[in-house]
């Protein structure tokens, strides 16, 4: 087990290094942040002085090594735009991103999985066709439009929910539903597809022929095997949700990491971009590790550890 864990850790290290190198070079290729940091009438000398002070005149590999060395010591530098430690900004926003991602994932799974199962079991029925049409609709609907519509209906017209911001459970409902809808659609289609495949297998026929109730056949025998692909996709989607919800965050003024990193890119806030990318990469890798561990629980035939 230790060997496996060590192997995974090693993989994680070089994945993180690779991501940090790629993101470092790309953000530096986007241009010079010093121009944005000084007023319009700053002289050429002032620009050069600041560039020198921030180390932007050093060769790029030197800048990267400096960043990597500091990152190893837990120092991610100060945001050029906000002028406070980059990690502080991320830690302020991360709980909001985790909250939104978790809520969207929960809504999506709670709604989509039963729909997917029922659609598979009652294939060809009106319910099946209706839910797949709904799934297509959910996948196709732009987040931006959906978000605005939800605000117009539930906040402006009905006055049931706050328009934007974060603070109470009520603030969480609309953004997580808006985000969860496309996930719902994806999970419903996936669940249906996998369930259809599993339900056609021999062991299911055997279970039915033994006289087991259909409910037990589906939930206990079939669904467990459908979980593996579902868990895989859910794990990947969770990682994407953490950094990729900038549209929802913008519409609902949700103080998450997605909007923070997009603004940082536009502002060429190198330290903040690099810190966010690293943190999200670590979380993504951790989530995938958890997913891999879950496989062992879901399917005892899967084991990463050598037999003694």
């Amino acid at each position: 087990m230790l060997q496996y864990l060590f192997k995974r850790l090693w993989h994680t290290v070089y994945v993180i290094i690779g991501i940090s190198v790629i993101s470092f070079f790309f953000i530096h290729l986007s241009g010079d942040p010093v121009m944005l940091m000084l007023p319009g009438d700053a002289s050429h000398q002032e620009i050069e002085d600041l560039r020198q002070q921030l180390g932007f005149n050093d060769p790029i590999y030197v800048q990267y090594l400096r960043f990597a060395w500091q990152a190893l010591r837990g120092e991610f530098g100060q945001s050029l735009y906000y002028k406070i430690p980059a990690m502080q900004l991320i830690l302020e926003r991360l709980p909001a991103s985790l909250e939104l991602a978790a809520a969207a994932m929960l809504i999506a799974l709670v709604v989509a999985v039963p729909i997917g199962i029922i659609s598979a079991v009652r294939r060809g029925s009106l319910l099946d066709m209706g839910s797949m049409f709904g799934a297509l609709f959910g996948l196709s609907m732009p987040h931006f439009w959906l978000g605005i519509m939800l605000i117009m209906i539930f906040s402006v017209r009905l006055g049931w929910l706050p328009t934007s911001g974060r603070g109470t459970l009520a603030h969480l409902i609309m953004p997580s539903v808006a985000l969860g809808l496309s996930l719902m659609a994806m999970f419903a289609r996936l669940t249906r597809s996998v369930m259809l495949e599993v339900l056609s297998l021999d062991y299911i026929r055997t279970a039915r022929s033994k006289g087991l109730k259909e409910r037990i056949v589906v939930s206990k025998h079939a669904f467990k095997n459908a979980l593996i692909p579902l868990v895989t996709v859910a794990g990947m989607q969770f990682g994407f949700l953490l950094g990729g919800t900038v549209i929802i965050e913008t519409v609902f003024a949700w103080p998450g990491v997605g909007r923070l990193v997009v603004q940082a890119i536009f502002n060429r806030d190198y330290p903040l971009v690099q810190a966010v990318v690293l943190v999200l990469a670590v979380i993504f890798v951790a989530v995938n590790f958890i997913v891999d561990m879950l496989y062992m629980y879901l399917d005892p035939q899967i084991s990463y550890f050598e037999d003694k």
Partner: protein
Amino acid sequence: MKKWSFFTLAGFICLALAGAPAAVAASDTLVVMQEAEPVGLDLMQSSIQTTMSVCYNIHDTLFHPQEDASVLPALAEKWEKIDDLTWKITLRKDAVFHNGEPVNAAAVKFSYDRANNDALKNPHRGKLSAFTELKVIDDYTFTIKTEQPYAPGLYMLGYYLPIVPPKYIQEVGDSKYNTDPIGSGPYRLKKWVRGEEIVLEAFDKYYGPQPAYKNLIFKASPEEASRIAALLTGEAQVISGIPVHQRKKIQDSGKAYLTPQMGVMPYIGINTYEAPFDDVRIRQAINYAIDKELINKALFDGQAIICAGPISPRTFGASPNLKPYPYDPDKSRALLKEAGHPDGIQARLAYPTYMSQIQEQAEAIAANMGKAGINVTLEPFERAVMWERYKGKKHQLYIYWWDDAPEPDRYMYSLFNSKSRDYYYKNPTVDELLDKGRTIMDRTERAKVYARIDELLYQDAPWAFLYVVPEVFGVANDVDYQGRRDGFLNMRYAKPKM
């Protein structure tokens, strides 16, 4: 569905709705929603509009600038001109900072030195560059000198020299001060939950009138539809960033009204160093080629104010003798032919994608120019790239904007004096007049100088002059607040409507 599931779900919904905030804030609380959250709360560390808006509620300056570019007393109680270069200013004795430190001449000297400190990189330092020395005379009196007579001096001090507490800053440092400031304004910072809200509370020892609202909350919502929804539901009582096509919705709602604030003045800068734009006939041809009236009608509901020259018609010093370049594509073609381009010219027009309604404006302008024989290739750039290319002198034509401040020196000097920027145009006569304009103390005489500058630039056409689009704030019906031309949300002036 099983009973327990139903009740669990129902309970969940009730819990969620119970947590929903009251649709309308308490009557002693004012919620203001801007497009973006401040990046910090130190006026000397940011020049971003949304940041400065919050700061002006926390910090006070020596003077309160007025809409006609004059000033009223603030921390300064009285002042006199000792000579052409020196003001003697006496502070009021009852002003204190939020932590109890006195607002005295030593604090003013500290603030002045800090504003000019190289390490701080104060973005407003250039606006105070006319001042050369500040000397403390006694606890509440000081003198401040300029190199030459400087007419907008007090106005500039009123905006760009916030008076800050020396002891507190020396204890906490600049970085902490930017997130946890102490000022001497009518509101003090209670808490800042980054990404969510900034909560200010009225400072009970403020020397001036107590603000009408005890609590002032600034929130940010980048999406305009969300901000407008917040205004209509009562979650916010004042909002900024309302595009023209959304204004009627607010007016028709019966729940809020619009109040004018800053004017946004887009313009097309022309690279006068690069052929064929080094020929004034080509530049004038560009001006004749743009149908500003049509653009105003189509994009701004007729609310934009068409500009003749570079000085906004709302700013003193705009020449009364000028009429805006009319839309005349035939005249434009004739000028192109005269300049040796009978078949027209090619041009690249750059614009920054973050500006409001910019794509529609750029496309309309390009279409207009095309009819006059100026074939335009549009170049949209995101903010950083646009600015970098601007400073690198890579644009041929470019759209940028300024705000039409009441004081002409505030933008004319920065935009046209070659000491400030000469990336695309340089005119020694204009330089001389701009230097002269800021040294004349008599307003009528100053106006004549700026009128001359306006006329010179109109003829020389280093820009294609466009229009001023008055921005507005949306204000809930139960709040009495009039926007100001500086565009800052200074909520000390807001009060409940009776």
